[in-house]
C-alpha cells in the first residue's frame, strides 16, 4: 500500500517569528504523491511561511522557530540536516532568480556545482538537455547554453529556475507564487508545464490567483490568519466551501 501513503505530511506544524505571535498555527495536512496542491489565502496568512518550512528555509534565520512535525516519506524533516532536505525538496521563488554569474547550462547544474557533486561531461549534458526539455525550453536555448541567463525573458528565467530545481530530482517541488511576476502568456506556459511535471514530482504551490489554483491543482488549502481553514479537493473547495471564511475569501470579501 506504498502508493497511498502521503509523500508529505504536516502534523501540528507551527512557525513563529517572535515568541508572542505564531505565523502558522497547528497545521495538519497530508499531501498525496504526484499531485498539485495549491495554498491560497490573503496576504500575511502564513502560506509562504508554511511552504518555506518544508525545505527548512527558516533555519537560515535564527529568530524563526518551527514546531510540530513535517514528515517527508514518513521521516520528520525537522530532525534532518537542512542540506539533505533541500536536495530532496526543491523550491522556486516568486522572482525568477537565475544565478547571474553562471551560464544557462551551469544554472541548470547549479545544484551539482554548489554541492560539489561531480558527474561526467556526457551525464551533465544529458541532465541539462533533459531538464530544459521538461520545462519546454530546450529548443529556445540549445544554441546559447554557455551564455549567461540574464538576457532571457522573465518567463524563460522562471522556467530556468524550475529546471534548476528539477535537476536535483527532488521528491517535492515548492513554488512560492511562481507566476506573480510574469505576464499572462508566460503564466499560461508555466501552468501547462506544472500539469506535465506532476507526473514526476509532487508540487506544492502558493498562489494569490484563485483562477490558477482552480486550473492546475487537484487539492487546495485555504489559510487564514495562520490557520489552515480548509483543505480538500479543489473542485469541492471552490464549489462547496465548508467554512464561512473560505466562502468569504472566494467571493472576494476577505483578502
Amino acid at each position, binding site marked *: 500500500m506504498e502508493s497511498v501513503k502521503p509523500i508529505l505530511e504536516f502534523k501540528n506544524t507551527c512557525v513563529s517569528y517572535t515568541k508572542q505571535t505564531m505565523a502558522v498555527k497547528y497545521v495538519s495536512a497530508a499531501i498525496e504523491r504526484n499531485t498539485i496542491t495549491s495554498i491560497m489565502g490573503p496576504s500575511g496568512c502564513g502560506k509562504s511561511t508554511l511552504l518555506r518550512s518544508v525545505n527548512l*528555509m527558516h533555519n537560515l534565520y535564527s529568530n524563526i522557530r518551527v514546531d510540530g512535525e513535517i514528515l517527508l516519506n514518513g521521516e520528520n524533516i525537522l530532525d534532518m540536516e537542512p542540506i539533505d532536505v533541500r536536495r530532496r525538496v*526543491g523550491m522556486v*521563488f516568486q522572482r525568477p*532568480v537565475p*544565478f547571474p554569474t553562471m551560464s544557462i547550462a551551469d544554472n541548470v547544474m*547549479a545544484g551539482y556545482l*554548489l*554541492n560539489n557533486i561531480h558527474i561526467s561531461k556526457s551525464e551533465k549534458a544529458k541532465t541539462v538537455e533533459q531538464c530544459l526539455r521538461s520545462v519546454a525550453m530546450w529548443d529556445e536555448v540549445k544554441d546559447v547554453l554557455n551564455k549567461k541567463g540574464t538576457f532571457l525573458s522573465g518567463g524563460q528565467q522562471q522556467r530556468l529556475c524550475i529546471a534548476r530545481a528539477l535537476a536535483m530530482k527532488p521528491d517535492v517541488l515548492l513554488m512560492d507564487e511562481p507566476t506573480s511576476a510574469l505576464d499572462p502568456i508566460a503564466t499560461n506556459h508555466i501552468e501547462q508545464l506544472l500539469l506535465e511535471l506532476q507526473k514526476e514530482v509532487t508540487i506544492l504551490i502558493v498562489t494569490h490567483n484563485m483562477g490558477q489554483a482552480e486550473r492546475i491543482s487537484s487539492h487546495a488549502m485555504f489559510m487564514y490568519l495562520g490557520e489552515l481553514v480548509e483543505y480538500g479537493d479543489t473542485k469541492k473547495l471552490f464549489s462547496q466551501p465548508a467554512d464561512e471564511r473560505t466562502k468569504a475569501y472566494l467571493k472576494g470579501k476577505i483578502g
Partner: protein
Amino acid sequence: MKEKVYNILLYVTAAVIPILCGGIFYALCTDAYGAFQHFGFFQFITSTDWNSTPGHEQYGALPFITGTLMTTILALIFCIPFSLPVAMFVGEYFKGTVVASILSTITDLLAGIPSVIYGLWGFFTLRPLLMAMNISPQGSGVLTASLVLAIMIVPYAASLSAEFIKMVPDDLKEGAYSLGATRAEVIRRIIFPVAGSGIFSSYILALGRAVCETMTVTMLIGNTNNIPTSVTATGNSMASIIANQFGEADGLKLSSLIAIGLILFLITAVINVIGKIMIKKARIS
C-alpha cells in the same frame, strides 16, 4: 532677485574646486617642466641616480617609483587577509547585528587615526619587533612601511567590500540554499562572484590611498635613495622623497621633486578614476 544671487553664489562656489584642482595641476606642470626638459621625461623616470652634488646634479625617479610600487603592492597583499574577513563578517555572517555594527565602527575608526600616529606606532612598536624577530636588521624598510600601510587601508577596503557583499540579493542566496548548498559554497559560488567586481574596485580605491600615503611611509621606509633590493631593504617612496627633501631643495632638484609629485598626482588620479568607474558599474549590475 534673491534666487538669482543664490544661484550665482552656488555657481561660483561650485567653480572654485575645479579651478583649484586645475591650478594645482598647472603649477605642478610648469614647475616640473625644468626637470623634464633637462633630463627628458623617459630618462627621468628610468634613471636611478639621485645626486645633488653641485656640478654633478643628476636626478632620476625610478628608485622612488619602485619604492611606491613595492610598498603599495605589499600593503595590498597584507591588507586582504584582514579586510576580507571583516567584510564577510559585517556583510554576510553577522549582517545587521549589533556585533557587526560594533566591528564596522571600530574598523572605520582606524581610518580616523592620524597617519603620524601610525608612523609612531610602527617606529616604536613594530620596528623593534621586526628587529627582535631577526626579520630586518635595521627595522625600518619597505616591509615595515607596508605592514603599517596595510592596517591603514583596511577600513577603506573592508567597509566598501562589505557594502557590496550586503548588496547580493537574498533571493540569490536563498536560491542557492534551496538547492542544498552550504554556507561556504554560497559564499564561494554566489556571493564572491556576484560581489566580485565591487570587491575588486574597493581594493583599487584602497590602493589609491596607499599610493599617496606620505607621513607613515616617510617615518618607516628608511629614506635611502636606492632601489630596494629586498622587501626588508630601505628605500624611499615618491611621497616620502618629496616630504624628506623639499625643505632644502631649489633649482633643478626642486623641479625634479615636483616632477615626481606630478607623476604621483597622475597615478593616484588614474587609480581613483578607474576605481570609481568600476564601483559605478558594479552598483548598476
